[in-house]
């Protein structure tokens, strides 16, 4: 008597799990707004890897304390930054991968300031 009940419960939870999985697979893109502040051309240590999910609508809001040019590789988005109000990079994270974000300053020096990681759902 106990047994069928347990089976039914197990069955139900499997079903519920599948529903959650299905919901996850068909999940609508989530808007993600991420603030990134460059100080002296670098990001704080906890901001050097930006993790998002595939399909998300991403808004990166950049501020800086000195002028430089930013380039997000792969998605190939370039922005010129100057001190002042934030500059925005907006895109849909359609491709998975780990994409370097590079800065270039007036002297031509380049450095990788961080990475955008787009993980599969």
């Amino acid at each position: 008597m106990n047994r069928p009940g347990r089976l039914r419960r197990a069955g139900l939870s499997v079903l519920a799990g599948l529903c959650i999985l299905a919901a996850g697979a068909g999940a609508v893109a989530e808007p993600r707004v991420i603030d990134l502040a460059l100080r002296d051309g670098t990001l704080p240590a906890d901001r050097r890897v930006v993790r998002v999910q595939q399909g998300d609508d991403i808004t990166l809001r950049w501020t800086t304390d000195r002028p430089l040019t930013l380039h997000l590789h792969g998605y190939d988005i370039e922005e010129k930054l100057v001190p002042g109000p934030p500059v925005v990079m907006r895109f849909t994270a359609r491709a998975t991968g780990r994409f370097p974000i590079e800065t270039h300053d007036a002297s031509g020096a380049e450095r990788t300031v961080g990475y955008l990681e787009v993980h599969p759902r």
Partner: protein
Amino acid sequence: MTARRHWTPLAAWAVLALSAPRSALAHGIGQRYDLPIPLWLWVTAAAAAVALSFAIIGLFVTASPGVRGDWRVNLLRLPAGRLLADGRTRAAARAVAVALLALILVACLLGDQSPTRNIAPTAIWVAWWVGFAYLSALVGNLWAVTNPWSAIFGWGQALLGSRRAALRYPAWLGAWPAVMLFVAFAWIELVFTGRTIPAQLGVLIIGYSLLTWTGMALFGRTAWLRQGDPFGVAFGVLARFAPTEIRVTDRDACRRCGHACPGPDGSCVDCGECFDRASPSRREWNLRPFGAGLLESGDISPSMVVFVLLLLSTVTFDGFTATPAWSRLERALYASLIPLGEARLTLIGTLGLLVFPVVFLLVYLLFARGMAWAAGDPLSTATVARRFVLSLVPIAIAYHLAHYFTYLLIQGQLMIRLVSDPLGLGWDLFGTARYRPDIGIVGARFVWYTAVIAIVLGHVIAVYVAHAVALREFPDRRAALRSQLPMLVLMVGYTAVSLWIIAQPIVESR
């Protein structure tokens, strides 16, 4: 406030990104955007590699699986096979290869000098070097058939009359020229910052051409290609894994085309020149099991052992230089070598490139000693080292496939744009000059599973090949099986290193 998306050609950026001597190490040209494989997949794959290793041991302990290494189907018996391997088809393929070489050289010398507006850097590093490695391992030794330097030399001989080689290739020289030249090539690929500058590549191509033709004139075309030429030897090693081979079963014909060719049974495998000269009835184009060519290790000299380990170690080194561990090591060395100034990054890269093969060689010789000892020393360590070195090749091929999979699919798309404007002069020959690579061509999950399955399969084939070689080489079954325990430890370790690298986030050096 609005996001401006610049759909400027990748070119403009890559010019800045690649021409400045900035990132110390990154293979060839362009970047890889792979996500690291997740921990659970790493653990599952490592466990699968270990479990399947024991399954293979079990197979060899409980039964003698008929090693199907000699299974062959001659494709020349099929009309389609005859057409593909026809002399005219091969001549046409060679003519195309020579035309492409000429185009690349012209692009290097006369084209736009930015690395991604000119076809040469992408054609050389992505299409040829990575592409031919894939083809060699997964299809067959196409380089032996299409090598344009060999073709041009052959045409020269046809025009000027074929002369005997000035010298007999000395046996003591072995594959040492190929070893030296491959070290130089690996340094250019992985360390030299000028590798993406077309003019520099042009100079390198001219230098390589002179060297190659001199070697061919001195020692004979085939002798040089099989022992002196780094690419002939490298693609040859990879192609031993491939499921096809070209074979000439005429002892005399094989002996005539160069003493480097005939195998132990007198027939010669993957020798383009012998194949061209042999009578059609003595030619075979065989389908064979993957890895079958690795079982034939009778012709492996000590210098070839070094070459194979060099090839394996540079592939691993390439992956290792993109890991955070290397990045930390490089930063530490960089900080401690301040007096050396700007040359530091090159120096650190060069050191790494030299240390890796030495470590590979020492570790392999240690395990070869272990194998000989475990078997009760019926064979010397040197003999064991020569007989078993090829069995490591599948692990390297698998890692190579995993490492370059998305790179080839994404960076390879640049060729679509470049063929329309190979010199970067603003042409649009095929209407594809504005093509923009699709970075989403494959998803991360697909890449992860492909990479992990390739690595585990490569490991399984390697363990199988090593067992098959052991049963043939050691006097009794017990000794053969015992010899494989140290080998298994080595192979599991090597596979674990491959998996570890693809589980690391890719970081740009400095």
